[in-house]
């Protein structure tokens, strides 16, 4: 199995590591937060509060789940400077993407989020004992691993869905590209009409 908890820094090229440490030192949150404490982003993102009327698919309880999972799914990828405005943009993008899915998929995702929001389900199926907002990185990682590797196809499917919405939202954004070694699209001369340049 892939070890999600292995140290982050050794796998970064030197330049990236230095920059990341610098960012970390300047950031208001501690990167070295123990995985047994609440998540480093939890406080910073507490202010992210989008009026339900501005969301097409997501509900406030879904947003709480996504805010909890986002830094765990993307551990090692999002910078410590990722602030509340950035997170709000992510939530809106996820909302737009989910809204464009097929009606039957949306029904299933609605059911998934509603179930995850029910404390007994969260405890029994995800084994996350505290509310999502206060869950520890360790518990959330264990939950994700458990669903990913479950013998129950529906739980693996749920993992795949949560993974896809979070990964797509982050890696669709230019802020993620530098770390992925991708410079972004080129500037090109665009011919008018239908013929090539």
């Amino acid at each position, binding site marked *: *199995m*892939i*070890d*999600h*908890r*292995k*140290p*982050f820094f050794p*796998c970064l*090229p030197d330049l*990236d590591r230095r920059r990341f440490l610098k960012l970390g030192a300047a950031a208001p949150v501690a990167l070295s937060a123990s995985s047994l404490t609440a998540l480093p982003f939890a406080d910073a993102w507490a202010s992210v509060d989008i009026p339900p009327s501005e969301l097409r698919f997501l509900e406030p309880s879904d947003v709480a789940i996504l805010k909890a999972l986002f830094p*765990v*799914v*993307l*551990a*090692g*990828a999002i910078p410590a400077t990722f602030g509340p405005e950035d997170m709000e943009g992510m939530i809106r993008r996820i909302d*737009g*993407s989910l809204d*464009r*899915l*097929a*009606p*039957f*998929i949306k029904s*299933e995702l609605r059911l998934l989020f509603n179930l995850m929001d029910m404390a007994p389900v969260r405890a029994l199926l995800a084994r996350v004992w505290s509310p999502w907002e206060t869950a520890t990185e360790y518990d959330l*990682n264990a939950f*994700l691993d458990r669903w*990913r*590797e479950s013998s129950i*196809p529906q739980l*693996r*499917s749920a*993992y*795949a*869905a949560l*993974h*896809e919405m979070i*990964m*797509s939202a*982050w*890696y*669709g*954004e*230019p802020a*993620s*590209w530098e*770390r*992925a*070694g*991708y410079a972004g*699209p080129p500037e*090109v*001369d*665009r*011919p008018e009409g*239908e*013929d*090539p*340049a």
Partner: protein
Amino acid sequence: MRTRKVIDASTLSDDVTLEADVAVIGTGAGGGFAAEILASSGLKVVMLEEGGYFTNQDFSLRESDAFRDLYQENAARKTKDSAINILQGKAVGGSTVVNWTTSFRTPANTLAHWRAHWGMEEYTPSKLAPWFQEVERRLDIAPWTGDPNENNNVVRRGAEKLGWHWGVIRRNVRRCQNLGYCGMGCPVNAKRSMLVTTVPAALDLGSVLVHRARAERLLHRGGKVGGLQAIALDGEGRLPTGKRISVNARHFVLASGAIGTPALLLRSNAPDPEDLLGKRTFLHPVNVSVALMPELVEPFHGAPQSLYSDHFLWPGSAGGEIGYKLEVPPLFPQLSAAVMKIHGHGHAELMARLPHMNACIALMRDGFHPESIGGTVSLHDDGSPIIDYPISDAMWDGFKRAYLSMAEMQFAAGAEEVLPLHTEARRYKTWAEARTAIQQLPMEIFKAYLGSAHVMGGCPMGGDSRTSLLDTLGSYRHLENLSVMDGSVFPTSVGANPQLSIYCVAMRNATALARRLNSSSGI
């Protein structure tokens, strides 16, 4: 050149009724050619398209924008159990706007199978050759003469070392700048998609295009279609605006793709006495193997597909164990991140190595093996389509063999590590280690990552009315003035990227239809 008649249905303030000789529903590979050929024969054509009209001026070359504007369901269309992710286009020009330009003629083995099992006597390589030549001329289809990018080079290096077949892919491009953004809409119009060829040609011949218009149902009575009802969608293509578009025509050509066409016919309660509609829908399901290469690959640069291997495509007889075609996909951050089903630091570390990453895909040739009966398109409560695609043991066997082939090829090409996209796979350092481990991988959904970019079948042509809905000219057997010209007409998968097969059959059958309509009374 006369002024083009293009109606953005999202802006309609009233219901409209359009009159035409022929209504063409869909503007992708099939609809584009059908519209141009029918229009050039002098017929008045109305084209309907659910998607928006985006041009090279609009393409931002960002995955997130392309998925939103140009793909069905944000590029996250799924089978009923969500186990297979389907990439399918949705815009004027259909999937041809976003495909990777790969152009194979229908394999001779596939045509032989169709003749032997599906009564398609006229579908021989020599009889189709003139049609292929004409399409290839029209769309500048030629072998890629530039250097393949390093992602594709893995196929050549691996196959050469192992003594496997490999070949150069033919592409529908003119003055291609080798940018690599085929999947997000070509910004320089080098790709000869329907967006820049047949659709504007049909418009210049006086055809009308209505986009952001979703075809809801065909009205038919007594074995004849009387009209088509469509609804206008808002500017995002999201919600109905409440305005309706009605099209009255002598003849109707369905070209909404192999999910859209069967769904429209199902919504219309089209006669289907043998219960064939939406059945035998094929996907060329794909599994994936990622490799980390010592050299810089930059799999986001350069022509996305230029080399392939058919070494495993026809392992025995056509109906024997499932064969697969080996190709590579381009890797941009968003889709790459979404398909690698791990999270946290392990994922971040892989993504940081994207510039050194190669991926191989194996396209399963479904619909030939007796167990490979494909999927079924049916309707959700609201009339939207659902495709159920169970995976047979024969196909799992194909995926297992393909994981092995891809890893072997990647190691032969010099890979430092290979990671089959499977939740129980690890990053393997040697072919021996990978071979042993892959043998043990359980073949189950949501363990093996599966995708598709080719939807075919569901409204098949054939020589026998008990097993086909269309005759071999694409005419619907049970509605006299209805034809189908898109990927849904194939009785099995094509066994190669289907765009050129769709172009060829659409051109052939639209030419016959134009002759028929022009010789009958009423013109």
